[in-house]
């Protein structure tokens, strides 16, 4: 988008088209589907963090009355180590199969081993207790430090570190080493007058969606199998499941239910292939629903991380060098987002000399999945903490220092391209000028500020808009709607067609009713699927103009289109969209527009957050007392839902910073697998979260959209972390800043 333009519908706060169903309980989520004759599947999970399965005997379970089918890893046809697309794009089919049902070895507490289908869930659970497994328990590795040690117990005897100069001869828990550089890092530090350096830790944190994973499936021998499930990408479920089971894509229909939160965690499969095996074996539809314990133990958390960051700056505030070392936990199988950590860590800054290396490390925890801006919060937390320290060392205002060094148009990123127009400076200025930043702090309070960068993602989206004879229409798209994106699609189509949004009904079609579309993730839906919606809407408009032209016996170029009405420029005739649709049978058949695109030109969204905390110095308890989230939306299609993304990202990040963490026993058993002790923020934990929407249009999107879902979770870790640091006057290195940790910092016992 090259210039500011006036919109008729974009930028309004419409009522979402799926709203009625959601406030009345009518919307159907993953666990809400039942089929005639349906039976229930349950999964037996590992009681150990690391063990060899010496023997597995299912005979007693098979004989249990009411049991209809049993699945183990042996039920997967020979799977290969081909790469598969998932949230991270770096998993293999073999690893996926071994994660879905363990082969020979269990690699984390809760690792799935055997699945049983029975007439009722209770019978299935009774039968699970009859499975005999003999384990040889091994020592677990639970942290990157121990995992990277030369003598560490190995999770995979056949894993050799990739990315080393020389091919290693010994197996390792380090899957990959990445390295990125820009300029001359040593020269950069040589120029510096001030150097700050620190090591950081962030814990394993879960996406924490309220809806557990669930599916209902039916395997039909005639090749018409179907999966109903809660997912961010039903086409990815189709491809992963079909590959694991040796099916053709055309043999499997995947229907995306309404989805009760994902945040990256629903970009892979856990239950779906298992349920299909059970259905195939039992000849019955099978329903599987995880409980909360299973969700926390066995579905993708975000990576825990360790990092070392070093920054150098001149007295005048110019940052001359940024150096980093990142090690991310991948969980049981390789594929942490550490590369994305390397790519994002320093990217808010225009600095000539940068160097970062990253390590993808397997540990005996659940395989990580994408979690909102995967890899970025961990790395940017560490960098933002140190940029704040640098500001103190230089005697500078932290926003002012960031403005001096902020990435802007033309800035060379460490990962490759130079930035086009980006909105970091505008975000920093908005934060600086906010009432929040001017408010004085009270006793025992501290203020933190942090910036965040996320690329945003384009990619493939397919859309069809089918017009009805009365001028209403259906927008058929393939991107699951997690946070209200149907409202945005409706508005963008309405804008492009010049008709009221309410005339168009957006739906998420199953894999048979729309062409391939990538999943909802990476903040791509409003940008990329939105672009496809606009293109499909323009296709409708072009066809309508053609039809009107044929009615008037003129060329399409002689037809003007405005506000949903075609006008014959040669005469005075007018035809509304509805009139053209009503007459479509006489002008060439019904009208439908389409677009199958691979969207290019994704534009980064920068965020800047301000956080004030109050610390109880006797207990170490931290209360967030004021919070402001500033972020560049490019263009906010539906401002309320854009604000909602900022607020939701902030709340998740605050939870990560303050209380969320996985707690393991020395044996590697997860001790807090429930919402009681995995403490996500509750309503009374948070203040209102103020938002400032900055709009620096993305030149590559017709309406200027950038995508807003990810960036908001990045700054809270640093903003909260530094607010606590400044309130207590002690250096913060480890998250979460739970009361015991903060009290220890206050008392100097770290």
């Amino acid at each position, binding site marked *: 988008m090259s210039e500011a333009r006036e919109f008729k519908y974009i930028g309004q706060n419409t009522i979402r088209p799926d709203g009625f169903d959601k406030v009345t309980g009518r919307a159907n989520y993953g*666990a809400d589907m039942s089929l005639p004759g349906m039976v229930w599947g349950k999964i037996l999970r590992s009681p150990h963090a690391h063990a060899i399965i010496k023997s597995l005997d299912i005979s007693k379970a098979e004989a249990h009355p009411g049991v209809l089918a049993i699945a183990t890893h042996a039920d997967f046809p020979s799977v290969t180590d081909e790469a598969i697309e998932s949230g991270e794009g770096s998993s293999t089919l073999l690893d996926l199969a071994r994660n879905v049902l363990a082969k020979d070895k269990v690699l984390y507490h809760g690792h799935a081993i055997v699945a049983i289908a029975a007439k009722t869930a209770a019978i299935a659970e009774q039968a699970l207790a009859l499975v005999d497994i003999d384990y040889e328990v091994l020592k677990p590795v639970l942290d990157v430090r121990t995992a990277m040690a030369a003598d560490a117990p190995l999770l995979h005897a056949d894993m050799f570190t990739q990315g080393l100069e020389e091919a290693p001869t010994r197996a390792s828990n380090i899957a990959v080493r990445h390295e990125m550089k820009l300029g001359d890092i040593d020269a950069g530090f040589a120029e510096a007058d001030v150097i700050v350096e620190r090591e950081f830790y962030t814990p394993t944190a879960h996406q924490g969606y*309220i*809806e557990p994973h669930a599916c209902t499936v039916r395997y039909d021998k005639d090749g018409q199998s179907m999966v109903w499930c809660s997912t961010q990408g039903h086409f990815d479920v189709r491809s992963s499941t079909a590959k694991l089971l040796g099916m053709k894509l055309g043999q499997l229909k995947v229907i995306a239910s309404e989805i009760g*939160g994902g945040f990256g965690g629903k970009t892979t499969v856990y239950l779906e292939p298992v349920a299909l095996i059970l259905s195939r074996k039992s000849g019955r539809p099978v329903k599987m629903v995880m409980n909360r314990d299973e969700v926390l133990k066995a579905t993708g958390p975000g990576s825990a991380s360790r990092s070392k960051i070093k920054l150098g700056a001149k007295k005048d505030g110019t940052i001359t060098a940024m150096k980093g070392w990142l090690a991310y936990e991948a969980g049981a199988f390789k594929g942490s987002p550490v590369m994305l950590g390397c790519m994002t860590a320093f990217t808010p800054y225009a600095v000539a000399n940068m160097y970062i290396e990253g390590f993808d490390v397997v540990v005996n925890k659940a395989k990580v999945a994408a979690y909102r801006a995967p890899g970025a919060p961990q790395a940017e937390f560490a960098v933002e903490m140190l940029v704040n320290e640098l500001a103190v060392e230089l005697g500078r205002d932290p926003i002012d220092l960031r403005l001096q060094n902020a990435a802007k148009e033309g800035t060379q990123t460490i990962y490759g391209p130079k930035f086009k127009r980006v909105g970091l400076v505008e975000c920093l200025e908005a934060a600086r000028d906010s009432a929040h930043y001017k408010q004085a702090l009270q006793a025992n309070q501290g203020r933190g500020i942090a910036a965040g960068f996320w690329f945003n993602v384009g990619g493939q989206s397919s859309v069809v808009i089918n017009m009805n004879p009365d001028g209403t229409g259906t927008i058929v798209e393939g991107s699951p709607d997690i946070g209200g994106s149907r409202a945005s699609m409706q508005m963008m189509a309405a804008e492009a067609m010049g008709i009221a949004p309410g005339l168009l009904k957006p739906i998420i079609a199953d894999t048979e009713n729309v062409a391939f579309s990538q999943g909802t993730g990476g903040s791509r839906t409003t940008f990329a699927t939105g672009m496809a919606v606009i293109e499909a809407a323009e296709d409708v408009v072009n066809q309508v103009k053609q039809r009107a032209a044929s009615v008037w016996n003129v060329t399409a170029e002689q037809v003007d289109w405005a506000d949903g009405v075609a006008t014959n420029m040669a005469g005075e005739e007018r035809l509304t969209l509805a009139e053209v649709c009503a007459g479509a049978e006489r002008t060439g058949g019904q009208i439908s527009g389409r677009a199958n695109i691979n969207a290019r030109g994704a534009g980064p969204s920068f965020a800047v957050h301000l956080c004030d905390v109050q610390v109880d110095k006797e207990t170490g308890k931290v209360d967030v007392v004021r919070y402001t989230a500033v972020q560049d939306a490019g263009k906010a299609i539906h401002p309320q839902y854009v604000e909602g993304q900022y607020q*939701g990202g902030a709340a998740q990040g605050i939870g990560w910073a303050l209380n969320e963490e996985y707690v393991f026993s020395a044996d590697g058993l997860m001790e807090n697998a429930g*919402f009681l002790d995995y403490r996500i923020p*509750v309503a009374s934990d948070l203040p209102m979260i103020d938002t400032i929407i900055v709009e620096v249009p993305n030149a590559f999107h017709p309406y200027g959209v950038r995508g807003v879902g990810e960036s908001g979770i990045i700054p809270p870790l640093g903003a909260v972390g530094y607010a606590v640091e400044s309130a207590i006057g002690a250096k913060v290195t480890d998250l979460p800043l739970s009361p015991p940790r903060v009290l220890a910092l206050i008392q100097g016992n770290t």
Partner: protein
Amino acid sequence: MMAKLHITTSINGDATEFLCEPHDTLLDVLRNDLQMTGTKEGCGSGDCGACSVTVDGRLVCACLVLGVEAEGREIGTIEGVGDNDKLNVIQEKFLEHAALQCGICTPGLVVSTQALLTLNPDPTEAEARYFLAGNLCRCTGYDKIIRAVLDAAATMKGAA
């Protein structure tokens, strides 16, 4: 094993009978036997509030009530909120304020908000936040939910 128990109850004002096992929770019965899937399951341990319903007007988690306990009681669920095709003020305000994203927590929050405003028609922000602390939402950060609740209270007061 005993035979299933026959329970006679009232759900959203409708006389209802069902059969259940002694171990079935009210949530199991609502969702699996009565196909009333508006009440959601997020944890099964009373920690998330997605299954909020009322029993004799008292707000509870349906996962922490046995189905047999419904005998002779008045059960209220999300399906009973509003009047047929007309939303009530709370539901309207949730939509107007965009107080939902994925929407899985919304039925529970609507039921809980109704319970709050029945007990306390004019809650402060802090009162609303503490009353609703048992209804987890992972998407919104609660800001818009609390605004919707307070606006619903003000609107209902204005109408009264």
